[in-house]
C-alpha cells in the first residue's frame, strides 16, 4: 500500500506540480524582464495563446516538434511586436493595449480553430515525451519527481537561474533595471531606452511562445480554445508576487501549482468537492497569493507603464 501511495500520490503531486508550473515560470521570467525595463505587458496571456496556436499548427504541419516550438515563438513574438509598436513606439497606454490584445487573442484563437483547424478539439499528431535524465532518474522517489520530465521543465529551472544571473549580475541586467527605474538617467548615460524596452518586450514574447508551445505540445498535447485560459495572467500576478525577482516568481509558481495539484488530487483520494468549487480554486488561489504580498510590494520598477520620450 505504501509503495502504491508513494507512486500515485507523492510522485504525482510533486511531478505534477513541476509540469504545471512550467508555463508560469517561462511567462513570469519574460514578464519580469519586461516590467523591469518599465513595460507592463498585459498581452502576456494573448502572447501565450498565439504561442500555443502557432506552435500547434507549426508542429503538426512540419511534423517536427522543435520547428513547432520555433513557430510558437514567432507567433508570440509577433504579438509582442504589435504590443511594442503600440506602446513603445506610439506610446499608447500599456494597460489598455495589453488588455485589449489579450481579449482579442481569445477571439482569434476561436476563429483560427474553426477556420484553420476545422475542429474545436484536436489531438496533436506529434508530442513531446518526458526525457529522463540518465542515472539521476534512477534514484528512488526523487528520480521520478525531479529527473523524469519534459525537457521544458529542466529548461525552466535553468532559465530561472540564468535570468536571475543576467538581471542582477551582468551589465545587461543593470541596463534593463536602470531603464525601468530611471530612464532619464539611463538615457543621459547613452542607453537607448526604447530600444532596450523593445528587446525586453520581444524577449517576453519569446518566453511566452515557449510557454504556449509547451502547453499544447507537451503538457496536454491537445488544442482547444481553452488550452490557455489564464496562465498569462497568473504569470503577471507572479511577477508582482516575486517582487520582480525571477527566482521568487518561480517559487510562487511552484506554490501555486503545488496547491492546485494538491486540491485536484484530493478528488482522486475520494474527497468529493463539487466540480464548480474545485474549478474556482486556482482563481481564488491567485487572489489569495496576490493579497498576501499585495501591500508589501518591494523594489517596484518606478517607471512601470510610463512611456519614455526623448526630450
Amino acid at each position, binding site marked *: 500500500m505504501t509503495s502504491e501511495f508513494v507512486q500515485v500520490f507523492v510522485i504525482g503531486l510533486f511531478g505534477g506540480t513541476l509540469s504545471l508550473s512550467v508555463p508560469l515560470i517561462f511567462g513570469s521570467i519574460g514578464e519580469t524582464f519586461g516590467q523591469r525595463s518599465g513595460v507592463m505587458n*498585459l498581452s502576456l496571456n494573448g502572447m501565450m495563446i498565439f504561442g500555443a496556436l502557432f506552435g500547434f499548427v507549426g508542429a503538426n504541419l512540419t511534423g517536427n516538434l522543435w520547428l513547432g516550438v520555433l513557430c510558437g515563438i514567432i507567433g508570440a513574438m509577433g504579438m509582442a511586436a504589435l504590443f511594442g509598436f503600440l506602446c513603445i513606439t506610439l506610446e499608447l497606454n500599456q494597460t489598455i493595449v495589453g488588455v485589449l490584445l489579450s481579449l482579442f487573442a481569445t477571439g482569434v484563437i476561436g476563429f483560427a480553430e474553426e477556420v484553420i483547424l476545422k475542429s474545436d478539439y484536436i489531438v496533436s499528431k506529434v508530442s513531446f515525451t518526458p526525457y529522463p535524465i540518465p542515472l539521476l532518474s534512477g534514484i528512488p522517489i526523487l528520480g521520478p519527481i525531479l529527473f523524469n520530465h519534459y525537457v521544458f521543465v529542466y529548461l525552466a529551472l535553468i532559465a530561472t537561474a540564468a535570468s536571475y544571473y543576467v538581471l542582477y549580475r551582468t551589465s545587461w541586467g543593470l541596463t534593463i533595471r536602470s531603464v525601468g527605474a530611471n530612464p532619464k538617467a539611463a538615457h543621459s548615460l547613452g542607453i537607448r531606452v526604447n530600444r532596450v524596452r523593445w528587446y525586453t518586450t520581444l524577449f517576453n514574447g519569446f518566453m511566452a511562445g515557449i510557454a504556449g508551445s509547451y502547453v499544447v505540445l507537451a503538457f496536454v498535447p491537445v488544442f482547444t480554445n481553452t488550452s490557455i*485560459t489564464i496562465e498569462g495572467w497568473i504569470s503577471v500576478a507572479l511577477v*508582482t508576487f516575486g517582487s520582480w525577482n525571477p527566482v521568487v516568481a518561480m517559487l510562487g509558481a511552484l506554490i501555486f501549482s503545488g496547491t492546485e495539484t494538491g486540491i485536484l488530487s484530493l478528488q482522486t483520494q475520494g474527497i468529493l468537492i463539487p466540480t*464548480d468549487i474545485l474549478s*474556482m480554486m486556482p*482563481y481564488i488561489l*491567485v*487572489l489569495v497569493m496576490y*493579497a498576501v504580498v*499585495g501591500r508589501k510590494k518591494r523594489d517596484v520598477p518606478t517607471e512601470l507603464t510610463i512611456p519614455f520620450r526623448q526630450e
Partner: protein
Amino acid sequence: MIASEEGGPDSTVPGKTGPILVRVFEVAVGATLAFATTGIIIYFDGKDPISAFSGIAHGAFGNPFLIALTLVQMTPILLTALGAIVIFKAQIWNIGQEGQLYVGALFATWAALSLSTSPWFIVMPVAVIAGAVGGIAWSGIGGILYTYFGVDAIISAIMLNYISLFLVHFLVLGPPLGEVNSGGNAISLAIPLAARLPIIWPGTFLDAGFLIALAAPFVVYVVLIRTTLGYSIRAMGFSQTAARYAGVKSRTTVLSVFVFSGALSGLAGCVVVLGFQYRLQLGLSPGYGTMGIIAALLGAGNPIGAIFGSLFTAALLNGTETTTITQGLSSFLVQVLQGITIIGVVALSAEKLRLTERLHLSKRRK
C-alpha cells in the same frame, strides 16, 4: 503632469473628447481594417466575404424585428460600458464587468424567484435593485482587494470573472434557483411573469431594460460632472500618482467608484435576465462585459459616446450571430471584428500619429 491638464492621460473626461468627426473617422478606419482582414480570411476559407458582410448588415438592421434585437443586445453592452467608463476614469483598470454582470443576473434571478408570488410592482423593482446589488457585491470584492490588499484591479477582475461563471453554474444546478431534479442541467427556473420587464415595442423583443440603459449615460454624465463623487473620480484620473501620495485618493472614494461601477454592470446582468432571456445560465452573456469595454473605448470614454459605441458593437454582435448560423461562418468572427476595430481605433488615437491632439489614450509625463 502637464499632459493631464491638456486632457492627457485621461481622454475619458466628458467634454474633452475632441472633435467627434475625428472619432468617427478613426472608427471607420478601424472597422474597414477589421472587415478587410477578416474578409481576406473568409475568402481563403472558401466563402464569400461580400455575402457574409451583407449578411451581417442585414442581421443587424434588416427588419424591425432585427433592429429591435440589436437594441436588446445593445442594452447590456451600454450598461457595462458605463460601468467601465466610471472606473477607467479613475485610472483603475477594473475589467470585471463580465463577472459583475453574471452576479447581477444571479441576484436578480434569486430575487425574482423568491418573490414569485408577489405582484409585479413589488417583484420587478426588487429584482432590478437586487441585480445592481449583485454587481456591487462582486465589484466590491475587487474593490476591497484593491484598496486593502493591494491586489491589482486587472488581475482580480480576471479571476473574479472566472469565479463568477463557476458560481452561477454551481447555483443553477439545484434549488432554490434550479429545478429540484435538474440532472446536471445548469439552467435556472424561468423568471416569473410579474418580474419580466415589459416589452416596449410590440411584436419584437425590445424590453423596458433598453430605456433604463438609455437613461443611464445621462445619469452617469451628471454624476461625473455635478457630484462630489464625480469630481473625486475625475481628480483621480487626472493625477493618479500625485493623488495617491498626497492622500487624496481615500479608500472610501475608491470603494465608491467600485460600487458605482459595479451597480451599472450588475444592472446589465439584471436587464438581460429579466428583459430578454428569462432564465439564468452560462452563456447568458456572449461577452457583453468585454464588448462593453470596447464600446467604452470606441466612445472615447464619454458616457454619451458610449451609446454609439455600444450600438456599433451590438450591431456587429447581432449581425454576426444571425449570419454565422446561415452562412457557416465562425462564431468567433464577431470577436475578431470587434478586436481589430478597437485595436485600430486605439492605435489611430495615438498622439504620435498626430491625428488628433485630444483623443489619445497615451500616458506620459512632462
